[in-house]
C-alpha cells in the first residue's frame, strides 16, 4: 500500500468511528432531542471523512466535485431536517394523532 492509501484508510476509519458513534447515540441516549443531537452531527462528520478519504485514494477533479456536492446536500438536509424534527418534538405533535 502506498502512503496515499494509508492516509485514505485512516480517514475512512475515522469516518466509520463517527458513524458508529452516531448510531450508538441514537440507540442509547434517553430522549428524542439528545438522540437528534448525537445523530445529525456525527453522521455529517463521518460522511465528510469518508469522502475525503475516497478523494485521497482517487484524486479525480470530477469525483471531488460530486463528493463535495453530496456532502453539502447532506449537510443542508441534515441541518434542515434536524430543525423540522426538533420543532415537531418540542411542540408535542410528534405523537400519533388519530
Amino acid at each position, binding site marked *: 500500500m502506498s502512503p496515499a492509501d494509508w492516509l485514505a484508510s485512516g480517514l475512512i476509519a475515522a*469516518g*466509520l468511528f463517527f458513524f458508529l458513534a452516531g*448510531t450508538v447515540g441514537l*440507540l442509547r441516549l434517553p430522549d428524542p432531542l439528545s438522540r437528534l443531537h448525537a445523530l445529525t452531527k456525527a453522521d455529517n462528520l*463521518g460522511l465528510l471523512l469518508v469522502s475525503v478519504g*475516497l478523494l485521497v485514494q482517487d484524486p479525480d477533479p470530477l469525483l471531488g466535485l460530486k463528493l463535495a456536492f*453530496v456532502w453539502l446536500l447532506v449537510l443542508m438536509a441534515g441541518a434542515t431536517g434536524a430543525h423540522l424534527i426538533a420543532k415537531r418534538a418540542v411542540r408535542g405533535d410528534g405523537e400519533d394523532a388519530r
Partner: protein
Amino acid sequence: MNTFLAAAALILLLTLGAGLVRVLLGPTPSDRLMAAQLIGTTGIAILLLLAPVVRVPALVDVALVFALLAAVAVAAFTRRHQTFRDRQ
C-alpha cells in the same frame, strides 16, 4: 485497498441494521424519522465506498440522488400531520 473499502461498507451496513432497532422501538414518530435520516446518510456513505470496489462510477451519481431524496423525505414527513390537522 478494495478489501478495506468493502469491509468499511460492511461495517456501515451493520450500523445501519443497528439503527433499525430504533425504528422498531422508537416511542415517538420523531425517533423513527431520525432513524430514517440515519439510513439516508449511512446509505450514501455505503454507495460512495462501494463505487470504487465494484468499479461502477455511476454509484456516486446514485448517492447524489439519494442525498436529494433524503432531504425531500424528511421535509415531507415532518409537514404531514400539521397540514392534516390544520385542514380539520
